[in-house]
């Protein structure tokens, strides 16, 4: 499929949509809403005609969460007004479509940072709530919803003012609810104070997965931000070799002592003007990120990282959003696109993590972006993804034969360990496992059905996984196909990759 489009478009009309992974693709009528009034009008129209409807922001969820085949997609990426910003308390109220990017350009120079940012700043605030996104600080600060004070939600039953006290079940059904409770029109968020726009970063290498996990368990508590990049193509005793980066916002005292490194943060120490360094202008007809290219990249990336370096001064964009420097980098995966497999397993289920990392290595799945992080306690969102334990996120090019079966096997391991996969990244989960992974699914369905008995709100994700509607009966499926002679990804078990 070559026509996947996830760029914001200026006009209304029917078109093909996909998520950031560029697959799956479907067609819908897109209605641009520039404010709450336009959004509620679109919702009323769809309710009247019986069409399915879902909201969409900047299209950064990886799979099919923000599209609905044959229905109406309300594009709120144009509703970007900053309604209120209190420079004393750091409380901001903004329309749904304001991006973290735009917010930071205003707030950082004033000494305020978003409490939670995912790996890209090109997400809308409403999208961040709908996915209940997490960042490198989850073990300290929790996920996005924890910092949302209230929001306005256009539901099929009317517009509600929602907070943790008022309509609290709607609040927590919306946090992580993938847009299926309603259209968030605006929201109020508590920011965190920073003294500078610089980060102080410690980097170290870990020899293998166990070494990495041990280092994280031992010293994560000392850092607000922590994450590990893993080389999932490394083999043998190197399986899971990794680079840990952990850091803090630099205090002004720390930055003033940093000499020349501090100059670029300006006289007020809070200069912030991230730029795109490059862009991928078109989708190449083939995947540029081949297994060999990724292996070479991973080798270089690991070797380039210092064995140990303390106190490096970095910019916000280098520390939090390095990929945003390359516009539309997702095109590098070629016309078939890619998926991100992200799961969490509870502390104590390290064996599952080892097993999956080992399998990624033995199958030589060419991922150059594999990230490991420790989560803190879960928030009360019915479908919120984070839960105390380990989360691994793996970018995987689509089009590898046997991938569907390989990932289905991972799903079973994750579910058996009491873990789950992240719906904001998903394009292919086994629907039968949804209820096991999200045990509060029925509670969430009740809230949705109360707000929207006619089921106007729906998405391709909803339909593919039967999110809102129980499966007619559990499907009985053989675990692997008896007819298949191929092992996953077309390799025989003993085969050694070049």
């Amino acid at each position, binding site marked *: 499929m070559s026509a996947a489009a996830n760029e914001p478009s200026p006009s209304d009309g029917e078109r093909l949509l996909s998520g950031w992974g560029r*697959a799956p693709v479907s067609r819908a009528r897109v209605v641009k809403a520039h404010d709450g009034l336009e959004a509620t009008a679109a919702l009323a129209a769809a309710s009247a005609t019986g069409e399915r409807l879902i909201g969409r922001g900047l299209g950064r969820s990886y799979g099919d969460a923000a599209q609905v085949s044959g229905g109406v997609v309300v594009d709120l990426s144009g509703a970007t007004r900053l309604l209120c910003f209190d420079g004393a308390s750091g409380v901001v109220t903004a329309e749904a479509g304001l991006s973290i990017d735009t917010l930071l350009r205003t707030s950082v120079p004033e000494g305020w940072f978003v409490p939670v940012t995912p790996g890209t700043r090109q997400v809308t605030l409403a999208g961040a709530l709908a996915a209940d996104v997490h960042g490198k600080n989850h073990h300290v600060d929790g996920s996005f919803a924890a910092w949302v004070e209230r929001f306005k939600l256009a539901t099929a039953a009317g517009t509600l003012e929602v907070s943790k006290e008022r309509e609290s079940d709607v609040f927590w059904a919306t946090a992580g609810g993938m847009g299926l409770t309603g259209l968030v029109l605006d929201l109020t968020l508590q920011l965190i104070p920073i003294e500078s726009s610089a980060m102080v970063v410690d980097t170290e290498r870990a020899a293998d997965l166990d070494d990495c996990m041990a280092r994280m368990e031992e010293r994560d508590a000392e850092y607000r931000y922590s994450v590990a990049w893993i080389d999932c193509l490394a083999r043998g005793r190197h399986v899971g070799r990794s680079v840990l980066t952990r850091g803090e916002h630099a205090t002004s005292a720390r930055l003033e002592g940093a000499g020349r490194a501090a100059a670029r943060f300006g006289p007020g120490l809070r200069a912030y003007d991230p730029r795109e360094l490059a862009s991928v202008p078109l989708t190449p007809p083939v995947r540029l990120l081949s297994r060999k290219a990724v292996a070479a990249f991973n080798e270089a990336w690991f070797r380039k990282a210092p064995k140990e370096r303390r106190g490096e001064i970095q910019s916000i964009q280098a520390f939090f959003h390095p990929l945003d420097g390359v516009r539309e980098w997702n095109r590098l995966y070629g016309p078939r696109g890619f998926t991100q497999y992200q799961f969490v397993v509870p502390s104590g289920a390290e064996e599952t993590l080892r097993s999956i990392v080992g399998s990624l290595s033995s199958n030589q799945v060419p991922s150059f972006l594999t990230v490991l992080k420790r989560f803190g306690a879960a928030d009360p969102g019915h479908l919120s993804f984070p839960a105390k334990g380990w989360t691994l996120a793996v970018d995987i090019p689509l089009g590898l034969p046997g991938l569907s079966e390989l990932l289905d096997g991972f799903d079973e391991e994750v579910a058996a360990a009491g873990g789950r996969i992240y719906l904001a990244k998903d394009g292919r989960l086994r629907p039968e496992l949804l209820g096991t992974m999200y045990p509060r699914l029925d509670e969430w369905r009740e809230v949705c059905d109360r707000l929207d008995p006619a089921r106007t709100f729906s998405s391709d994700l909803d339909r593919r996984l039967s999110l809102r509607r129980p499966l007619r009966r559990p499907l009985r499926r053989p675990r692997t196909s008896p007819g298949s002679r191929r092992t996953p990804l077309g390799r025989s078990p003993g085969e050694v990759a070049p």
Partner: protein
Amino acid sequence: MIDATGMPQSGVLLGGTSEIGLAIIRRLATRRLGRVVLAGRDPAALEQRANELRSSGIDQVSTFVADVRDAGALDGLVSEAWARLDGVDLLLVATGDLGTAELSELSAGRVASIFEVNAGGPAAALLAFAEAMAAQGSGRLVVLSSVAGVRVRRANFVYGAAKAGLDAFAVGLSEALEGSGVGVTIVRPGYVRTRMTAGRSQAPFAVDPGDVANAVVRALETGEKIVWVPAILRLVFAGLRVLPRPVFRRLPG
């Protein structure tokens, strides 16, 4: 919905009693396929196949009686399939009839009929489903072509000529659907051991329906448009295509 790895959840098998078609359905059911309509001419045979699929664990299977040569019936199939399956992810076209290549048995009417079953009807079905799939912006059309159409042989030239037509139509349709979200997969099996070929002398590189099914699942994952089963036939036919006629005529099988 079709998932990111290309696996469909709902599908229509046209030629609902085809062994190869059913093997593909069963194989896809080990991944995501759970809602199926079997369409064909013989209600009793369809119902029997539907029962077999149900007992093998496929969630929703129903049947629809339609003759591929009847354009009105195909229209009915499209609307019925969308209603029953809540959107159709996959159309699998597996109708076919070897007919005859004996000049004494052939007539204008017989030739037209063989062409209708093997090419005209399937092409009309592909078109009808393609249009509806393009409206939803997603879908896969899988066409069972045959190597018999790649270089037509004396022994089955009417069937081969019809398959050549269908194959070419599908290649062109695939181009026409570029950018619509709908993909076409053209399957070119060699000799497949089925009821249809039973009693005929087995050609080299013979395969079973399960092998075709595995190749189709693989192609849906990789996005490959033309699938030879077994894969070696791509090379074999690259050679056969340019073989001088007197030599080609004398080949066994």
